[in-house]
């Protein structure tokens, strides 16, 4: 009996919280304290861009979304791993710029046309270190839905995991291997990324 009562209490508390959150975010700006809301807004922004814009316009718009909603400097730093410390100030700046451009380009080319995909937000799991993970499913028109997990830190998206594959981790492995095979310096990687961005 007490279990049932506490469950009801928890439910009503949750409902109250949901209502108050809805009230706050109904009028509030896109950047909010609620991780699920942040993911939802970002997904909607990207879908709108893909629906309405093409080519260079689309890439610029996606870059704006990336810089507003993603913690690009932190993602870049962690993608460079231990090599970040030995990079010069200008190398770091150039690296971050090239990575942001590369990601924007990748995202704008990834969806040729909007194929009717929708994002269903699942539960939000708070972690101890101030990170919360938002679980979601990308529903496709055909085939199985794709599992997407978003890592939110300081109201910004810090990583996206697609079917368990972390964007930052994969980049880190990729960049690290490239640096090791090219003399252990950051410079060749930055130059390669810049030449790719210019293409």
């Amino acid at each position: 009996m007490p279990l049932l009562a506490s469950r009801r209490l928890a439910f009503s508390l949750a409902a109250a919280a949901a209502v108050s959150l809805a009230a706050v975010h109904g009028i509030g700006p896109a950047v909010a304290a609620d991780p699920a809301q942040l993911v939802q807004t970002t997904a909607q922004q990207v879908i709108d861009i893909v629906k309405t814009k093409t080519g260079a316009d689309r890439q610029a718009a996606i870059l704006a979304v990336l810089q507003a909603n993603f913690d690009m400097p932190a993602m870049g730093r962690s993608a460079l791993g231990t090599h970040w410390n030995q990079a010069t100030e200008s190398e770091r700046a150039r690296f971050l710029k090239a990575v942001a451009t590369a990601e924007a380009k990748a995202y704008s080319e990834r969806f040729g046309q909007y194929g009717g995909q929708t994002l269903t937000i699942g539960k939000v799991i708070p972690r101890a270190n101030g990170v919360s993970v938002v679980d979601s499913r990308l529903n496709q028109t055909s085939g199985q839905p794709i599992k997407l997990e978003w890592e939110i830190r300081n109201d910004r998206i810090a990583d996206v995991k697609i079917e368990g594959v972390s964007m930052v981790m994969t980049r880190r492995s990729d960049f690290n291997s490239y640096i090791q095979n090219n003399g252990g310096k950051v410079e060749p990687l930055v130059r390669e990324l810049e030449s790719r961005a210019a293409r």
Partner: protein
Amino acid sequence: MDPGSALMIGVTRAISASIRRSVVAVALAGTMVGGCATNDTGAADVWDPLETPNRFIFSINRAVDIIALRPLAVMYRDLLPDRAQTGVRNLLDNLGEPVTAINEIFQGEPNRAATTMARFLVNSTIGVAGLFDVATSFGLERTKEDFGKTIGLWAGVEPENGGFYLMLPAYGPSNARDATGLMMDYLVDPFRILTYNLAVDWDVWQIGRYGANAVDYRSRTIFALDDLEKNSVDYYAALRSAYTQNRADQIRQKREKTDTRSELERRDNLALVR
């Protein structure tokens, strides 16, 4: 001392030296594995001692992929009607169900294994030899298990640690754990055993099945792999990381599911005691 006994002593010495050396090698390998397990920083650095031969195999695989497999997969995806593709997928999945059921038993989920076998029986009969997946509409959900996951479930290490990374010829990315799993799955596969015992030309059937599986699987990974290749500066390293993370995620899901279930069972038992 005659030459014969000198030779004998020499040989014995050589053997004992080689044994000593191999013991050292095993011990070294042990510390390396151990080191890999303790310093595990996730998928950022996958243990890849065979990187040079792996990269060599990878380049051959890619050549074969560019010349033959990917074009076939593209044609399969774009030219074959969707319903035919679903039929082929269902047929191949159905042939894989017994292996999944065997693995579910080894994973300690006999109920799940029973469901898989029920699926197999329903789809093989009402579903016309597996062409139609009627079992799902009966509420029998499909699962796909392999022995690599079974090992990963019980191994007491981080699921990112699957032993050394291995690029298999034709098959693609793998590691010590998953390659062992692949071999086990091959050995226990009732269809392989059955065709071997019944049909004269069993290898033709098997090659047809594995070939169809390869083309079908490749057709569903075109988008993801093209994307990974285009957006990486070192495709080999990016694929190595992505493969390791994806497998680790599958295993972690299995572990969590098992943990949740055992936790619920424990609570049920507690409730019964009270």
